[in-house]
């Protein structure tokens, strides 16, 4: 589980690192972004930033290196690289480290609460007549998110606006259904990437969609990426259950609010409402269990897996049943429970759609019933191993193009050639007794050249050991 969270964190950082320098300068004019960026850094980098925050002049790089003990110097250097990539702290020409002035100033503002940027969200002044509370927001968020997933899977639900559909298509989770003769371009079908997406953890899903949205915004929607990012980081610092006014938001940010409303990140009673409520999904974007490496809360598991390959899922949600039906053969459905069997055919169908065994196992583990969590390992080993074996069955053969050398006149020539080819791993298979050598395509050129040189040296015209091109199927280990 923590792997996926770590990948989320990494993916946000990678995305940020792809941005050009000027963008960073614009980003760092908002203190909320500075705060969020600080929290994304590794621990050593955070300390370095904090120490340099109140220095006026550039610091010698050697001094900074001396801050760490010898054995942790490599961590320090990695942190410095990261800081340079995020454009927080850069190296000037003369071996000095300079902290980004804009970042510094706005970080001061963040710590002290100064400035006029209203970047931490202005709470709404007046009392809301239709005030909502936190359980309502949670319900709203989960309903909206489930509706999106339903739309992805293709179960008939109410229509979603174009924005949602566009985003799903753009992120490769759905594709246009060219087969049907319907001209309505809202007819879409789920792709294999979409299947994999379904099995991911909620936090990872939200962030992957957001990153896609960012790319979409940049390329197609012509929105200012800086404002979008600022808005996202600002939202991460808002408080759950508090309504905020939309006055300080720019137009771009209001558009983002509109779009992301359909994903369950915000609640706005009407389109023209002057206030909005962030839901739990929004406030835990840059904090909470999204980025921390702690266990997500348990208690909503519902799957029981038995050693006889039976699955009992205590759920009524059609979405979860639909996800399960991807790789489980459902046998019976009751009012609050679904009974299914993990079969070879079911799993092979899923594998054919592009889902990996690991994703299936992670999904089952993540949604395991609390009773299952009490035993260790959570899932029965027989079932886990069998799923992996079914996956490996598909990889029985591995094909690679190669060249075969045979008919060597004597053992010396064979040995020479094989000893030459061995060091750079060109040999795929060899048989000393029969004096046959199978060499990779890349290695073939070098081996051929070597052989020519040897022949020229010996002066023997065109003798044994000729190569033949073949695609040889090799049994995979």
């Amino acid at each position, binding site marked *: 589980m923590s792997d996926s969270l770590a990948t989320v964190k990494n993916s946000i950082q990678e995305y940020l690192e792809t941005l050009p320098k000027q963008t960073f300068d614009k980003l760092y004019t908002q*203190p*909320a972004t500075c*705060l969020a960026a*600080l*929290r994304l850094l590794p*621990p*050593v980098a*955070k*300390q370095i930033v*904090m*120490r340099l*925050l*109140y*220095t006026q002049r550039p610091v010698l790089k050697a001094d900074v290196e*001396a*801050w*760490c*003990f010898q054995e*942790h110097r490599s*961590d320090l250097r990695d942190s410095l690289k990261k800081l340079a990539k995020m454009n927080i702290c850069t190296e000037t020409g003369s071996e000095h480290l300079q902290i980004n002035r804009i970042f510094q100033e706005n970080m001061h*503002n*963040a*710590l*002290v*609460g*100064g*400035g*006029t*940027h*209203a*970047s*931490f*969200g*202005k*709470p*709404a*002044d007046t009392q809301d007549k239709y005030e909502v509370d936190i359980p309502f927001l949670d319900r709203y968020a989960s309903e909206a998110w489930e509706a999106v997933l339903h739309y992805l899977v293709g179960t008939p639900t109410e229509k979603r606006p174009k924005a949602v559909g566009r985003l799903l298509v753009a992120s490769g989770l759905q594709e246009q259904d060219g087969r049907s003769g319907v001209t309505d371009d809202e007819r879409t079908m789920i792709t294999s990437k979409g299947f994999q997406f379904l099995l991911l953890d909620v936090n990872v899903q939200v962030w992957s969609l957001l990153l896609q949205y960012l790319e979409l915004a940049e390329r197609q929607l012509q929105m200012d990426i800086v404002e979008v990012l600022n808005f996202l980081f600002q939202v991460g*610092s*808002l*408080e759950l259950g*508090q309504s905020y006014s939309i006055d*300080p938001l720019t137009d771009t940010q209001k558009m983002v609010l509109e779009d992301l409303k359909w994903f369950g990140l915000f609640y706005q009673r009407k389109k023209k409402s002057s206030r909005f409520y962030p839901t739990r999904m929004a406030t835990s974007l*840059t*904090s*909470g269990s999204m*980025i*921390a*490496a*702690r266990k997500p809360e348990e208690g909503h598991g519902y799957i029981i897996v038995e050693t006889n390959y039976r699955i009992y899922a205590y759920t009524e949600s059609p979405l979860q049943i639909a996800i399960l039906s991807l790789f489980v053969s459902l046998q019976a459905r009751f009012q609050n429970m679904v009974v299914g069997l993990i079969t070879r055919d079911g799993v092979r169908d899923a594998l054919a759609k592009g889902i990996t065994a690991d994703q299936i196992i992670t999904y089952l583990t993540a949604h395991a019933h609390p009773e299952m969590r009490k035993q260790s390992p959570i899932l029965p080993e027989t079932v886990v191993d069998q799923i992996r074996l079914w996956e490996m069955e598909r990889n029985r053969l591995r094909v690679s193009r190669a060249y075969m050398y045979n008919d060597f006149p004597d053992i010396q020539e064979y040995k020479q050639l094989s000893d030459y080819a061995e060091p750079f791993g060109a040999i795929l298979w060899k048989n000393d007794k029969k004096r046959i050598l199978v060499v990779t395509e890349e290695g073939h050129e070098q081996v051929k050249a070597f052989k020519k040189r040897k022949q020229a040296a010996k002066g023997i015209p065109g003798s044994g050991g000729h190569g033949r091109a073949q695609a040889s199927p090799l049994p995979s280990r």
Partner: protein
Amino acid sequence: MTSEESINLLAVVIDTNPIAWATAAQDSRCPLDFGRVLEQLLIFINAHLALRFDNELVVIASHTNQSLFLYPPQLSDTDQPPDASSKPANTYKQFFDVNQAVIKTLKDLITESKSPEDVDDKSMLAGSLSLAQTYINRIRRANDPTPLQSRILILSVSPDLPSQYVATMNCIFAAQRVGTRIDVCRFRGKHYGEESVFLPQACHLTGGLYMEIPEAENLLQYLLYAFLPDPYMRSVLCLPEKDQVDFRAACFCHKTVVDVGYVCSVCLSIFCSVSKQCPTCQTQFGGQ
């Protein structure tokens, strides 16, 4: 790694002894302004909270006759919870809450204790440390099984209180048992903040950092540099160490430091010379 998985708790104990601060403010060489010190301390606290969303904090004021929790604030029934809409949009909510709570409670504390009888030149250090320890224990139990890394930062300017020796040592041993480090930031001037005996021992025994700050203008830099790293980071970053702490004892009768002393087997008080009766517990000494 342990740094990513454990929660960090910082407990700040502020010495609010008005007499000591008043003396410090009038010092000729390097006057200390409590207001400035408090400002920089609040920024430091915000920096601690900024590092990770799940960093915990508790602030305790060590006054002349009581210790008080500044944050989290102890709301009595008559207080209203702070109005959420009063928060300006320029401040991160958590920073705002902490700053407001600390300043308000501190103001109340200082305006309450006005009569001269209340005010002596002492500070309830042992009391504040005890409160900090029990709070740390509560947070540790609440977060079980996630490990908790706790540290206590003391900003001190008052002299040591010999009557609180036993209580202070108990707090230090309790901290040692749990792994809490005690850091001390002591303000030293010509007429205030003389050499403390208990505080360097506390730092040495618990693995913390003892620093004497000559002037308050650069306090923030010292705080960010030396006291911000959490215990895991201390093994990565090199921080200044105090060399030798004198663990020799002072005899109870003359308060002079002794190398070889005589210890009463009943009450463990230390004396510099032999006598027939223990002055502390009045036991007669018989036999060798």
